């Protein structure tokens, strides 16, 4: 099962008109993400697992399920590479 994520501690965000405005405080810059990524960020912020985020996205967006789940995974990887989210160590493992 994929690792869970959380919003990076220095990151602040708001969803405005379906887009996510993300401030990376450490870098001192602002990133803007589209509607699907905005929803992914929101759901990470609510503490949902990647599986649960995929389930929500499938319910909420009108596209083939496989494509949505793949998009969610891609977005999570991208958000991690941008230090917007960070991967949590599996239970029982040191972070």
């Amino acid at each position, binding site marked *: 099962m994929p690792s869970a994520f959380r919003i990076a*501690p*220095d990151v*602040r*965000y*708001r*969803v*405005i*008109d379906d*887009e996510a*405005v993300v*401030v990376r*405080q450490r870098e*001192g*810059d*602002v*990133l*803007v*993400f*589209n509607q699907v990524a905005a929803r992914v960020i929101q759901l990470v*912020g609510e503490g949902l697992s990647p599986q649960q985020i995929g389930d929500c996205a499938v319910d909420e967006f009108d596209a083939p399920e496989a494509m949505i789940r793949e998009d969610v995974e891609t977005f999570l990887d991208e958000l991690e590479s941008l230090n917007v989210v960070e991967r949590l160590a599996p239970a029982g493992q040191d972070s």
Partner: protein
Amino acid sequence: MSTFPEITARAWNEGRLLDAVLELTHRCNFDCFFCYNDRVLRTWPLTSDEYSDLMEQLADMAVLNLTLTGGEPLVHPDFFAIGARARDLGFVIRLKSNGHLLRGDVARRLKDEVAPYQIDLSVHGATAEVHDRQTQQPGSFDQLLKNIDEMNRLELRMKLNCTLTAWNEEEVEEIFNLADRLGLLLNFNATVSPKDNGDTAPMSLAPTPEGISRLSRALAQRREEAQRREKEESPLKDGKGQGPDVIRHCGAGASSVTIDQWGNVMPCVQWRRVVGNVREKPIAEIWSTSSGLEEVRALTVEAKKVVPHFDGPADVTIFCPGIADLLTGDALAFYPGLPSQEATSSSDDGAVDH
């Protein structure tokens, strides 16, 4: 997908609240002669619980930037509780402070518990003699420099704010040099405002025309240098670039709001027209129904049209309708001075500034 400047411009044009300023207290550990705060307590200030409730409402409205200011916000007895709540609610927090208390445990707690994006520090001169004369606190300049050094080690982002006065106008270049040595951005404000209660005593410290010209020259030189550097350096980062045209002169009451310690809602720190009180109505309701805010929004649209036609040093003037209102009773009237110009004194250009 939008860029951040496009989102900011839409907020200005459509009246979407993005920035809130909370004046936590008008009390201060300094006694600056030119301070505009009226320190008379009129009623019971907002409690920590009321601030928590207000900030929840602001977060629900998707407000991104929250400025905690004063007076000196750190002398508020519940500062850390309020700041920590703001952090938990996901605001990008800016603190405006004189910096005197920002050392040791206070600085560490600020980083750990509030985690601000930036601390705006007030500096009043390039020397202890000039700075301390304004604060009326001997040793405050040296303490500020020590505290900046300590906060640098804590990796807290800082910026300097300086109000140009008759007392410091001969040190303009030295103040820029000080900011450069410290590696901090510097913002000059060239308008000394009356007090909130209309008392014009602080204006006796207003800079002279020569002082304003001196600042203008220094700013022009630094802008040229910054533009040259910008051309030489990397292309725009994400979130930057030009936004679409805005219909307003400024975001006062359209994308930003100020709330004082008694819950009074005003369009801006400078535009102290009370348009509601958060003890009487939720901020969202004030934002969407206040006739006072509607009037302010109409004035900022009008200001956008009239300001370019002012006689006077328009090339160096950033007009503030709030100051115009305060000084002349007419938010669209020209007034002398150079209200605010920002100069870049380091390569960091503060991405959430706007």
